[in-house]
């Protein structure tokens, strides 16, 4: 078993970034000693699967993000059920909540995010949950049998996934959103309205420009009064308004924090030998060229993986991260990436091209820069081969010569101009009759 002591690599956290780091560094360094500190007392699972489990689509064993023997095979010491409380970077030691100390050569902070609770009195009652962790999942699961009416605070991605999961379990769901439309920061108004239509059709109640004014009940929430005075019965209250970076460990150290823990493209913090990734970090967004918190699964895994390579001495850069979502709400498939723009035109020289086909229930929107680079896109309904658009975006391809083709539902490499097509596929085809 694992003993306290010194490790070549130490990771704080146990989710996507941690697994990315281990898989990255183990592909370079097979022998270095690796340990991780995990607060939750269970094997690594995917938070992104919580709605699938609670919606009744998967069993508990499918929640695991990697096989049960993953850490053994990667020869990782797992200190489970412990919290790291302090980093002493001068002597390269991490202190745990039980007072024990772990030395490290390289350290990764992958502490993730913590759900935000708005300052509404009564959100500490028994049947109030965030939608983030295994304790949340177990708590919500216990409530499901007796719940007839649920309130979901927050009409963003998490809130809507929670709403759909509860709806599937036969519960009447009420979604409260402070903004004038659902998913407001994530997608444009047209997409929001398509999602609102889908929820309405399914029978989910929506309250826009609204929030909880008062929570009623003693130990448990029994009902809530909304800002507009309306009263809703409530057997289960889900708070899904967002997640804030967990940066406590960096506080009081010389690790720079700007909302998230600031890292360079190698995922290293301002302190040499300490790396960070995922929801706790502020990372490079290749579309905007700035550092920002990008709390999305692919970014967390990839950031961890890049950190792992660099920690093991192989230089790699995190230059593929941006906002990106693959979502589905009541069978409406949506993907988006990059900047989100509502309205036809936006300053900064950005130009919007869009097409809404009400018959086919498909919608496509591209945000182009002055020089024809895709800066953002949204596809609703027909999402096949969406990754080609992300690739064009990452490679900063001028799409103006074929921009009409982007709206074809079966858009593909055949639609690109010949020279560009074969440049992008140079390793994948053999040209010339041979």
């Amino acid at each position, binding site marked *: 078993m694992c003993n306290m002591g010194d490790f070549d690599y130490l990771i704080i956290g146990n989710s996507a970034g941690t697994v*990315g780091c281990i898989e990255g560094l183990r*592909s370079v360094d097979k022998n270095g000693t690796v340990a991780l500190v995990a607060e939750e007392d269970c094997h690594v699972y*995917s938070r*992104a*699967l919580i709605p*699938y489990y609670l919606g009744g*689509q*998967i069993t508990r064993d*499918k929640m*695991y*993000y*990697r*096989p049960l023997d993953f850490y053994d095979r990667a020869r990782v010491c797992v200190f489970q059920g412990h919290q790291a409380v302090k980093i002493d970077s001068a002597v390269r030691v991490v202190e745990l909540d039980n007072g024990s100390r772990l030395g490290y050569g390289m350290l990764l902070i992958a502490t993730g995010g913590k759900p935000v609770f708005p300052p509404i009195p009564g959100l500490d009652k028994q049947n109030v949950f965030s939608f983030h962790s295994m304790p949340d999942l177990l708590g919500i699961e216990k409530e499901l049998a007796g719940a007839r009416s649920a309130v979901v605070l927050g009409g963003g991605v998490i809130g809507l996934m929670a709403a759909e999961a509860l709806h599937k379990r036969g519960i009447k769901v009420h979604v409260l959103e402070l903004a004038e439309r659902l998913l407001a920061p994530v997608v444009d108004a047209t997409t929001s309205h398509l999602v609102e239509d889908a929820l309405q059709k399914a029978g989910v109640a929506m309250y826009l420009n609204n929030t909880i004014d008062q929570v009623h009940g003693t130990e448990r929430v029994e009902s809530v009064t909304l800002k507009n005075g309306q009263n809703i019965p409530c057997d289960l209250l889900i708070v899904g308004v967002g997640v804030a970076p967990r940066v406590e460990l960096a506080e009081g150290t010389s690790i720079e924090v700007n909302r998230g823990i600031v890292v360079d493209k190698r995922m290293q913090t301002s302190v040499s030998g300490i790396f960070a990734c995922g929801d706790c970090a502020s990372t490079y967004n290749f579309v905007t060229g700035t550092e920002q918190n990008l709390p999305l*699964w*692919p970014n967390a*895994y*990839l950031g961890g*993986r890049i950190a792992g390579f660099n920690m093991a001495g192989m230089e790699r850069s995190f230059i*593929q991260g941006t906002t*990106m*979502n*693959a979502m*589905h709400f009541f069978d409406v*498939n949506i*993907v988006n*990436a990059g900047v989100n723009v509502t309205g036809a035109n936006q300053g900064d020289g950005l130009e919007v091209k869009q097409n809404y086909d009400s018959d086919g229930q498909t919608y496509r929107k591209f945000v182009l820069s002055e020089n024809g680079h895709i800066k953002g896109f949204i596809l609703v309904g027909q*999402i*096949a*081969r*969406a*990754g*080609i658009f*992300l*690739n064009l975006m*990452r490679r900063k391809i001028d799409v103006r010569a074929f921009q009409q083709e982007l709206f074809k539902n079966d858009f*593909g*490499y*055949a*639609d690109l101009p010949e020279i560009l097509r074969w440049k992008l*596929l140079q*390793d*994948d*085809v*053999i*040209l*010339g*009759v*041979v």
Partner: protein
Amino acid sequence: MGRIKAKPEVCMGCHLCEVWCAVAHSKSKHIIKAFLYEEDKPLPRLLVEEKLPLTFALQCRHCAEPDCVTACISGALWKDPESGRVIHDPNQCVGCYSCVLTCPYGNIFINHRKREIIKCDLCAGLDTLYCVSHCPNEALVYEDC
């Protein structure tokens, strides 16, 4: 690990690679039984790109650093270090389509009926690469690299 490569100039656009790919991944592996009698209609895991007269087939490139594996929220996709294959476990897949969003080649396909994805597995467990061996004009070849 090798890769399947297309020769666009000799591709006739017959789509037989798609047909045989679907057969290869059917239950019976029999072209008539598969299409006529199997409950799950056989689906191809590659696509003939077409803008006539141009045609060529494209399938999963089994990338060295696969974006689909990075994006997968359920652990259903992984790269097998020994074979180099990017493998998909349908039992673990929840159909979130994050891989569809991130595959730079657009080579992860959607099985709408089952809400899961399908992709090329280089005919794992079969004795031949069906798309390559059934191409009438050798427009698909397997190259070691």
